[in-house]
């Protein structure tokens, strides 16, 4: 199947563009100024993308697939997890489209549908650390000693601050989300689990 844009087919199918998915992720992800209908598939994003140079990741195709509702290709593949979020594409896009934002929205959607990347457990630890210590990366014994030698406090975050963060987590559903992510990993849904080749 050719990946090149078939303009005749595009014109033919324009009325059947799949808006449901596009609208759904636009509404969930309130941050992005979702204006991807402006993309005219020039491919400048792919040209500069570092991930595209070493893998099959292709931002141009991802935008096209999202608009055409070809969800399986977008959400099921490992590709959306390969984006480096380096923003090279956004800077060079003639329409200044926020492609990294789209990738983030797709990742959130994929996660909620049970797909997660390799070593996802590490990020889960960031979340747990944030709740327990107030920082996503916890202080090791060694770094505490180094901090002391450098003339700083061993632990820069107070118990009170950690307590306040716990209240925020409670109010905004962080605990539930972390539990959900942990369930995903433990259940090991092999048919949906991604492994990076």
């Amino acid at each position, binding site marked *: 199947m050719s990946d090149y844009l078939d303009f005749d087919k595009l014109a033919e199918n324009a009325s059947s563009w799949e808006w449901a998915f596009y609208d759904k992720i636009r509404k969930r*992800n*309130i*941050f992005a100024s979702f204006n991807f209908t402006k993309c005219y598939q020039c491919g400048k994003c792919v040209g500069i993308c*570092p*991930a595209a140079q*070493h*893998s099959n990741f292709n931002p141009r195709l991802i935008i096209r697939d999202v608009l055409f509702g070809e969800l399986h290709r977008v959400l099921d593949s490992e590709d959306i*997890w*390969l*984006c*480096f*979020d*380096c*923003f*090279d594409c*956004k*800077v*060079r*896009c003639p329409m*200044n489209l926020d492609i*990294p934002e789209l990738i*983030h929205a797709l*990742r959130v959607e994929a*996660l909620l549908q049970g797909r997660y*990347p*390799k*070593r996802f457990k590490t*990020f*889960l630890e960031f*979340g747990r650390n*944030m709740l327990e210590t*107030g*920082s*996503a*990366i*916890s202080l090791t014994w*060694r*770094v505490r000693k*180094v*901090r002391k*030698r*450098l*003339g*700083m406090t061993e632990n*820069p*975050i*107070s118990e*009170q*601050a950690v307590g*306040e*963060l716990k*209240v*925020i*987590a409670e*109010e*905004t*559903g*962080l605990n539930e*989300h972390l539990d959900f992510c942990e369930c995903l990993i433990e259940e090991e849904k092999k048919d949906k689990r991604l492994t*990076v080749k």
Partner: protein
Amino acid sequence: MGDLLMVINEERLEKIPLEGPLYIFKSCVSSNVYPGIEACTRKILESLGISVVDTDQQTCCGGLTYFTTISSEDTFLATVARNFSVIEEIASDMLVICNTCFNALHYFEKITEDFPNLKVKVNEVISKIGRKYNEGKVRFWHIAEFIYKAKDELARKIKFKLNGLKIAVHYGCRYLRACQEVAIDNPESPTFLEEVVETLGGTPVKYKEKDLCCGSGKMQRYTARDLSLQITARKIESIINEDADLILVVCPSCLAVLDNAQMELEILERLDSRIPVLHITQLIALLLGFDPNETLGIQVHTTPVTPFIEKLMENATEEG
């Protein structure tokens, strides 16, 4: 294309404060992995005679967990708002020593500006802990742009001159490109850090992969290690080809990746030599005469920094 300025943003440059009191926004990597970055920032401000205020109430910026899809927008916004409300009690300007933090803070401001109802929503959450976010009470500045503004004064105060040592500058992605609306230089062909290097007496090195990401991404070092290493290898090879003496970064994630990956790449026979990596605050603290182990924290670096320090000291004694 957006309004890309091809020159330094003078308007922003003027606003950067060179007087205290300033608050240093602590970060996971800059405080808990490479603590030298935080320590050097403190020493730099001390050398410039700028007073620093501190608090132990500031937590993680909330950016890392949000960007890796672990926390939701609501958690992210509330965490940032809480930090703002903590800091506004003690300072009106803060220096940000980490690019993820800077990205998180900028993102928060951008979104609450576009969607003002979020400010109300976020205050509802943090009112449960007796806090309130007031817009516009704290301004934040990236440490790199602060150093750019103070470069002439720093050049006067340094004890060791770079004396033409070749420095390869890595700009990174998160400050200039992700936050291009507020960054001080343009994202396509930045030059401000090379100006800093020249002012301090060094020679900025032109290398082919100047614009390339370090390989860290938001998570790729974990989720797609091979891919990440390929990018890092390209970056470092391109710099070693130009015989640079040091890689200079402004982001702690870039520091972590470029520092740690070299040993791995040597084992994979992708590199046959290593090159020291330093954060800009560490370099300046070194030039100001602070000790590598007591202030720079080079003991946590994987790639040895001493070859660069020896070259610096050699040059210094030659000039007399």
